[in-house]
């Protein structure tokens, strides 16, 4: 059974939005008041750039990623048929939260 999105929001303080979507951007479910479709679409767009990086570095395909901007942070974990994107406040070291998300998701 897939992990509940509201459970994913508890892995770190401040996380308030989550969306699960297929790799073509189709939203499966979302949690928190936000435009989940736009978030999913932007995430899919970003994924296109990331897919080449693993090959360039010899690291294989992307399994999870996070980026923190001026006031927000997005954490993305990949599953077999879908991905989940969780958002919260900016985080200088998003690695730990990302690790928790990757281990909690699917």
């Amino acid at each position, binding site marked *: 059974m897939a992990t509940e999105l509201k459970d994913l929001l508890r892995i770190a303080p401040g996380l308030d939005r989550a969306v699960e979507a297929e790799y073509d951007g189709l939203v499966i479910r979302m949690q928190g008041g936000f435009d989940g479709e*736009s*978030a999913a679409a*932007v995430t899919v*767009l*970003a994924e296109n*750039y*990331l897919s*080449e*990086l*693993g090959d*360039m*570095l*010899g*690291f*294989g*395909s*992307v*399994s*999870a*990623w*996070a*980026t*923190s*901007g*001026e*006031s*927000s*942070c*997005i954490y993305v974990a990949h599953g077999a048929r879908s991905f989940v994107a969780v*958002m919260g406040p*900016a*985080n*200088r*070291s*998003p*690695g*730990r939260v*990302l*690790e928790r998300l*990757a281990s909690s998701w699917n």
Partner: protein
Amino acid sequence: MDELLARLCEVPGVLGAAVFQNLKCLAHRLTPPHEPVLLEEVLNQLSRMGDALESLEGLGGNRTLFLRFQDGQLIVCHLGETCLVVLASVKAQAAVLSVGLNVAQLKLERMMMPTGSPMSMSSVMVATSPVPPPASSNYVPPMPSSMQMPSSMQMPSSMPPMPSSMQSAGISSAGLRSEPPPIPSLPSQSAESSMNMFGSSGSVLGGDSVGMSTIRHLIRVFGEFDEQDPQGKVRQAIAKLGGSPTHFPKSHYPALLQELASMLPARLRKDFQARVAE
């Protein structure tokens, strides 16, 4: 900066690290196949991805990026125009990695702190570069590490007399000059004079340390602004920053300039930093 990267590479699981500025590699600790040119391409790709992400609220501006792949991790920390890139194995623990990265980021930020003058990090690197400036400057060329003092090498008779206060401080006439110094030629820069200056040979400095010639230059310039024991004050500043005259990390050089400037009257600080950068 090399020391910063070396420390970072000691973190378990870290495969390599590099610092880039405007997508150009400033320093790196990378091993093949992860060459700086490859990471430049990676950063280019990530900057395009950043443009896409900026459409999401709050994700604009400088960012930290964590990428976990099946067989490795890539971390990019942006600090203004500079960014720290770290490659790690997939087994590297996020908690340990985060601590190492935070320390490295703080050090890098400190290195980038303005010193009161428009001197940027890249210009500091130029200032500490071992490449000698034109012969018309007062620059004292660095001594090759292999250079030994021939027994025939003597101080030129044209040297100005050394002030007694400096003599008592153990400073040789070749090490510090208070008034317009004659342009030194390499032979007059004896190993003995370097040893007299700081109690050890000037040749012990490694790649991560500020060159002895740079320290001498700093003392000479500082002496132009403060004639009272400039060498002692530079020594004091170096010690305060945890270094020694024979081993002072290049990464601490901006902080040293700031420390020395703070010893001068406020009106002279800017001129001092400008003179040092010349």
